[in-house]
Every structure is written in structure tokens, then in C-alpha cells.
């Protein structure tokens, strides 16, 4: 009797424990362990070659890594801000129209329906300096010298940002539109009677109501953009001369191309700090915005 009571809860929990163990805990422990070894994919026996904090020490001195780290922050900052701005604009416009809203909402989501790899290819050909659509278009207007969009060290980063923003602004637009549709009509009307013009209504009423949605969108997108890999890999491969190298393109290169998994894993663990920092920051803001509205 006593043994049965003890056993049945464990039996019932076992499937979840096993699932979580295999999917999360074991890979986590394993990858964390490898970051303390000189594990190379090409030499499996190096898995047991424990090197302590060597990988982390190397990483701290590695300027290329810190450049990629900084570049990722810059990429996040520019992309998130512009996507928020454009997404908000689109959401506000779509919220205004009364006829054809559904169709427009669907059309707006088209970019999200393409795989990022394909988006990367598409923009790679648009930005191609010889045969690209953009340069040919500019040629029509008299710009005869081809602009090296993906080759110039500054333009390349900008081009990737454009592609990223094109593909994902609609996520912001959708989330913010959901927020806009959820705003009660009364406070807005009250504000209009209270003497607000459109801009004042937006600033004083609409925006505070929308802030929780802004922060939810930012949280989701910061994780998404933070792990950007595919679009960069396709468009520039991290080039020219590593000028567009972001954290994950660098980690992937070191981990798989150089087969230096131990070092790559050490980088990953440092990189995660970035995602955690962004998520934490946006969540704090989200809670504050909701408290402001008296929702929490």
C-alpha cells in the first residue's frame, strides 16, 4: 500500500521528466560541458579533453567576437526600432480603413509566408551590383555607376537590414493592430470631447493603451532578430571581410566550418546573455506598462 502511493506519482511524472530531460536538460548540460573542452567535430575523442576556462579566456581576447557582438546589438537596435515604427504606421493606417481591412491584413502578411532563406536569395538578387533590380532601376534614372550594395562595408549591413525589415515588419503590424482593435472606444471619444486633436489622442490615450503590445512584440522580435543567421548567410555570408558577421553566423562558422565546437559553444553561452538581457529589459517594461494601465 505504502509503496504504491510512493510509486504512482513518480510513474505519472516520469514521461514529462524524460521528455524534458532528453529535449532540454541533457543537451544543455552536454553543450555547457563541451564549452570547457577542446572538442572538435572532426576528432570525437577530443570531447574528453577538458581545458577548463581556456575557451572563455580566448573569447575575451577575441576582438572579432566582440565586434560581432557589438554588430548584433546594432543590428537589433536598428531593425527593431524601424520595424516598430513601420509596423505601427501600417497598423494605424489599416485600423483607420473600414472597407477591405481583412484583405489588406492578409496581403500585409505575404512577406511572412516566405522562408527567410528565400527572402535572402530574393534580396541578394535585388541588391546584386551587376544584374540586380535596384541598380538597373537606378540606371534608368541616370545613376550609371553600379552601387556595390552587398560588397561595400557599410552598405552591406544596411542591405541586410532592409531585407530583414521587409520580411518581418508585418509581425509588428499584426501584433499592434490586435492591440489597436482592443482599445475601448470610450476613452478615445472622451479625449476628443475633452479637447484633444488627433495627435494628442494618439499620444495621450492610444499609445499608453498600445504599450503592452509594443513590448510583447519587441520581446518576441528581439529573440528572433537576435538569432539572425539565415538571411545574413545567404546574402553576404558574413562578408565583405566579416563586416556583416553577426554572433550566430560567427558561431556557426567556428562550430561547423572550423569544426571547433568547444569554442563555439563557449561563444553561444556568452551570446545568450544578450538575448536574456533584451528579454528581461522588455519584460520589465511590459509589466510597467500594464501596471500603468491598471491591468496588473
Amino acid at each position, binding site marked *: 500500500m505504502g509503496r504504491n502511493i510512493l510509486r504512482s506519482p513518480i510513474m505519472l511524472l516520469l514521461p514529462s521528466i524524460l521528455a524534458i530531460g532528453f529535449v532540454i536538460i541533457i543537451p544543455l548540460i552536454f553543450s555547457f560541458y563541451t564549452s570547457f573542452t577542446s572538442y572538435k567535430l572532426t576528432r570525437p575523442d577530443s570531447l574528453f579533453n577538458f581545458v577548463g576556462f581556456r575557451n572563455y579566456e580566448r573569447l575575451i581576447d577575441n576582438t572579432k567576437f566582440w565586434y560581432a557582438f557589438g554588430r548584433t546589438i546594432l543590428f537589433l537596435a536598428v531593425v527593431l526600432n524601424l520595424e516598430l515604427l513601420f509596423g505601427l504606421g501600417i497598423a494605424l493606417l489599416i485600423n483607420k480603413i473600414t472597407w477591405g481591412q481583412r484583405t489588406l491584413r492578409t496581403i500585409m502578411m505575404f512577406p511572412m509566408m516566405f522562408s527567410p532563406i528565400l527572402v535572402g536569395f530574393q534580396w541578394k538578387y535585388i541588391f546584386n551590383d551587376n544584374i540586380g533590380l535596384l541598380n538597373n532601376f537606378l540606371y534608368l534614372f541616370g545613376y550609371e555607376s553600379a552601387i556595390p550594395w552587398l560588397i561595400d562595408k557599410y552598405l552591406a549591413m544596411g542591405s541586410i537590414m532592409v531585407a530583414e525589415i521587409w520580411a518581418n515588419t508585418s509581425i509588428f503590424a499584426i501584433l499592434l493592430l490586435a492591440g489597436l482593435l482592443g482599445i475601448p472606444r470610450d476613452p478615445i471619444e472622451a479625449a476628443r*470631447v475633452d479637447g484633444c*486633436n488627433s495627435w494628442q489622442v494618439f499620444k495621450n490615450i492610444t499609445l499608453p493603451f498600445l504599450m503592452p503590445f509594443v513590448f510583447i512584440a519587441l520581446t518576441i522580435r528581439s529573440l528572433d532578430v537576435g538569432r539572425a543567421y539565415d538571411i545574413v548567410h545567404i546574402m553576404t555570408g558574413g562578408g565583405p571581410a566579416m563586416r556583416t558577421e553577426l554572433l550566430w553566423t560567427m558561431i556557426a562558422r567556428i562550430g561547423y566550418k572550423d569544426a571547433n565546437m568547444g569554442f563555439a559553444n563557449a561563444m553561444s553561452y556568452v551570446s545568450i546573455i544578450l538575448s536574456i538581457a533584451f528579454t528581461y529589459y522588455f519584460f520589465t517594461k511590459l509589466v510597467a506598462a500594464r501596471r500603468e494601465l491598471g491591468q496588473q
Partner: protein
Amino acid sequence: MAKVELKNLTKKYGEVIAVQNMNLTISDNEFLVLVGPSGCGKSTTLRMIAGLEEISGGEIFIRDQLVNEKDPKDRNVSMVFQNYALYPHMTVEENLGFSLKIAKVEKEEIEKRVRDAVQILGLEELRKRKPSQLSGGQRQRVAMGRAIVRRPDAFLFDEPLSNLDAKLRTQMRTEIKKLHQKLKTTIIYVTHDQVEAMTLADRIIIMKDGYIEQIGSPIEVFTKPANIFVATFIGSPPMNIIEGDVIRKENKLIIKIDDEINLECPQKIQSSLENKNKIYLGIRAEDIMPKETSDYTNSNWCFQKSINLAEPLGTETQLFFTIKNKEIISRMYNPKDVKVGDKINFQIDSNKVHFFDAETEKTIF
């Protein structure tokens, strides 16, 4: 404080007419109540005055100025909404001062006016709270305060008490009345509750399907309803409406209600019934009185019926019986025990009976 004038005001939603050719002058300091069942156009009218709803036709004047094309912000009216419509991210004080801040009123002046409003409405303790930390009644008060601080030309109330419980509603009703006496402002108040309309109004407008059915003081609309709709809408319990046939018998007009009840037509309205065969009688519950008399002949408007239901309310008992399958209510003011099935003698006060035309449903006399 100002006069508000509506001229041929019309609102259409596609083919549906919400308000039709409304003409109305609301004078300075008047407390006007728009009352009617839901969908009668009363809220739409109010929202058109506020500028929140576009006008399909007609004109609105506030303080003798045409405001048709003006934005709500330029009309200098303030509105109290049914759901309070407080700004959830602002404290009570900020809610009250918001309109003044937008109007760039000086800070000291804002503080002074907010302080005054807080005092008038008894919100001192709650100044720093957010709307989510207030009860329904308190929120209602803040919503009213927000309207007061602006010192507008007119106050617009859109069913402000419907979300409160019965007790609080009565209390707030009194407060609104007092507020009006204190502030002496033009108030346009929309409600579907005829008790609110009766207690608050200087003048009541009863609306139905976008039309005005009657305009008058509370006493007028109660004692002289223009038609059956107004008669049954105003007053609680609603006025009893009984169908009757007009029969000519030995130079006399008899109103035949059913086989047992034949009432002699009073002299004063005989002439108006002369060429009619059918009419409706409107009798308020208090005008059908239970009588302790054995004389229940029809001659002095007495009759006998057995009771289907008795609802004792303390000061009165409401007796329910049927005439021609229609439920009739009578008020008994000196309550005694009545059982279902008891035969009771009633007398109708013939001076207080309303007569309505059977076709137009308008008051004949």
C-alpha cells in the same frame, strides 16, 4: 452656460433612420432628459451634439453658433459616458485635469479647479488613485468631475447611471440633481430609465424610432400623455391599456369592455367619441381601486374580478387580474391579505381615465 438648438436634425445609417427631423431648443440652465427604449435614437442625438457622430442632415447650434462642421474639441461641451471612459493610466487628479492641460490652462488654475471639483464630489481621499482602484460609484464621480472642471457650455450625460447598482443609482441621481442646482448649467441627459427621467428633468423628451413622441415637464407627460406609447412608457407599473367598444344605447354612449363590464361614457368626452366604434382606455394602476362595497354595478365604474396574483410591497399591494386575456394591475393602498382567486370589487376613477384613438393611438381627450 448656453442654449443648444437642434434644427431638422437627421441621422441615417444607410437606409436605417436613427433620428428623423428633430427640432428642439434647450434653453440656458435647463435639465433636459431624453428618454426612450433602446434604439430610439436618444444616444445618437447626444453623440451628434457632442460631435462624435456625423450629422446626415439638419443643424446644431450651441450658444447660437453653428457647430455642424466643428470637431468635438471645439464645441466646448463635456460628456459623461455610460462606462465612465476614464483614462486608466492617469490618477484621479490627472483625469480631472487632463482637459485643462490639453487646453494649456495655467498650472495654478488647473490645481484650483481640480481641487474645487474634488471637493464638490467628495473625492479628496482618492486623488492619487488610478481608476482601476476605484469602485463603480467613485468612477462615476470622477467622470462627472472631469466634466465639471472644464466649465463647458453644456453637459452631456449618456446613461451615466446604468452601470451602477440600484442603491447607488438612487444616490447618484440625487447628487446629479444637486450638482445641477449648484452649477446651474445646461444639461442634456440620456436614459432609458423613466424614473431617472421623471426625477431629474425640467423637461422630458420621449423618443421612439427616431421620432419625438412628446415633450413636456415630468408632470405633464405623466398626467397628459400624448399617446399610448408615452402612457405606457412613463410611470411604474405601466399604465393599463384596455380595449373597449363604443355602443350607442338609448341616447347614451356605453363603453363595452367585456360581457361583464359596460361603462357609461362620461359627459365631457361624449362628443369626441360620437363617431368612433372602438377606443383604448388608459388607466393607471392607482386609478383602479379595490372598493369594499357590495355595489359593483357598472353605473359608477365598478366591477368585480378574481385575482390572479398579489404582490405585497409594504406601502401598497399590487393586484393582478385579467380583462380580455390582458393583465391588469391595480394598486391597493391599505394592504390586507388577499389570496389568489379572491373576488375583489374595483372602482375606476372615471375622471382619471385616458382615452386613446384606436387607429392613431393618440390621446382623444
